[in-house]
C-alpha cells in the first residue's frame, strides 16, 4: 500500500493518485480489504485536494537576487 506516500505531495500527484485508485477499484480485482483501504485513501486525498483548492488568497511574492547570488522572497502586497 502507498497510503502514506501522498501525504505531502503536490496537487497534481494527489490527483494522479486519486485517478489511479479509481482505475484500480473499477477493475474490481482488488481484494475487498485492500479495496476498502484504497477507498479510504481516495476519500482522504480528495478531501486534501479540495481543502487545498478552497484555501487561500492569491499570494504574490517578489524574487530578488542578492549580490552574493542568494535569492530572497518578499511579500509583494502593493497593487
Amino acid at each position, binding site marked *: 500500500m502507498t497510503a502514506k506516500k501522498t501525504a505531502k505531495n*503536490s*496537487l*497534481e500527484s494527489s*490527483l494522479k493518485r*486519486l*485517478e489511479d*485508485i*479509481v482505475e484500480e*477499484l*473499477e477493475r*474490481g480485482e*482488488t481484494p*475487498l480489504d485492500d*479495496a*476498502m483501504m484504497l*477507498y479510504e485513501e*481516495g*476519500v482522504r486525498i*480528495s478531501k486534501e*485536494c*479540495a481543502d*487545498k*483548492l*478552497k*484555501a*487561500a*488568497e*492569491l*499570494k*504574490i*511574492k*517578489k*524574487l530578488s*537576487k542578492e549580490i552574493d547570488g542568494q*535569492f530572497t*522572497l518578499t511579500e*509583494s502586497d502593493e*497593487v
Partner: protein
Amino acid sequence: MAIGKNVITITELTRQIKFSLESSFPRVWVEGEISNFKQHTSGHLYFTLKDEGAQLSALMWRSRVANLVFQPEDGMKVIVRGSITVYPPRGNYQLDVDQLQPIGLGELQLAFERLKQKLDAEGLFNPEHKKPIPEYPERIGLITSETGAALQDIRSVLSRRQPSVDVVLAAVRVQGAGAAEEIADAINSMNQYGGIDVLIVGRGGGSLEDLWAFNEEVVARAMYASKIPIISAVGHEIDFSIADFVADLRAPTPSAAAELVVRDRTEFLEDIGNLCYTMRGALEEQLFRLRERTSSVMTSYSFNRPKDLVREFSQRVDELERSLDISFAHGTQLVHQKYNSLQQQLQALNPSGVLKRGYAIIRKTGRIISSANVLGVGDKADIQFHNGIVGVEVKQGHEL
C-alpha cells in the same frame, strides 16, 4: 613665472582625461545616425554617430559584431550602447559599442526577420524542444514589470480561477534600454532559484518598439536555455514576437496566459467530486458482486451436499439405534438358541461320535469306501472302529 609650476606631459594629461572620461561614461545609451560606416577587414566596425548638433566616433569589435542581426548602413538611425574610451595615440575619444539596434519600423522589422531566420536555423523554435506545460502548477514564476498592466491582469485571473497557487514575481523593466537583459537575467534567476513549475514572461500591449525587448536574441536564448517551461505573453494579439516562437507555449495576452496556466478551481473540484463518485460506485459494485457470489454459493447444491449427507447419516444412526434397542433382548436369546443347536449339529457330525454308536469306516488303500461294489472278493480293506483299526479280506459279497 607661473608657467612651469603645473606643467605635465601630454601623456600624463591624456591619461588623466582617459581616466576621467572612461570612469564617467562606463555605459551609455545614445541615439544617432550612422555615417562613415566602414567594416575593416579585421571584422571590426568603424563609424560615426551624429545628430544635428554633434558627432561621435564609434567602433564595434568583431566579437560583438557577431551578435548583430542587421547590416548597419550610412544614414540608418540607431540606438547604441557602449562605453567611452580614449585612444591616446590619436588623442581622440570614441564610443566602444557593444550593442547596436536600429530605430524605426523598417529597420526593426528587418532586424526581426533576420533574427527570426537565424534562430530558426539554429533550431531554437523546434517543436521537439518544447517542454510540456504542467497541468497543475502550484508555483508560477512571473517575469514582467511590477507596475505594468500584465501583473494586474494575471493577478485578477489567478485570484478568480485558482487562488491556491503561489506566484513568484521577478520584477523587470519590459521596455527601453537594458530591458531585454533584465528579462534574460530574470529567466536565469528563476531557473537557479528553482521550485518554479512554469514561467510566464510578458507584458501588456504596446507599440512594436515598446515590445522590442521580447524580440531580442538575449531573451530568446535565455528562454531556450530555461529548464522551466515558459509561456510567452506579449500583449499583442496579432503579431508574434521572437519570444513567442521560442516559448513552449504562446499566449496572446498576459490574461490569456493566466487562463492557460491554471484550471478553474470549480472545474477542478468538480473533477475531484466525479472521481470520488466513481470510486464509491466501483466499491459498491464490488461489494454487490461479492454479496451475489456469497449468496449463490450458500444456496448451491454442492455447498449444501455435505450438510445433507450429515443429516442423512445422523438419521440413519438414529434408526439403527432405535432398532438396536428394540431387538437387543430378543437378539441375545436367538443367539443362544442358535449356539445350542449348532453345538448339537456339530456333535452329530463328529465322526468319532458316530463310530461309538456302532458305525465303522472302511478304507481300501487309505480311501474311504462308501459302496459295496467297489470291493471284490479277495480285496483287502481296513475297518476303523472308534477304538481301533482291523484289516479284513473279502470272502464273498452281493448287492442289496
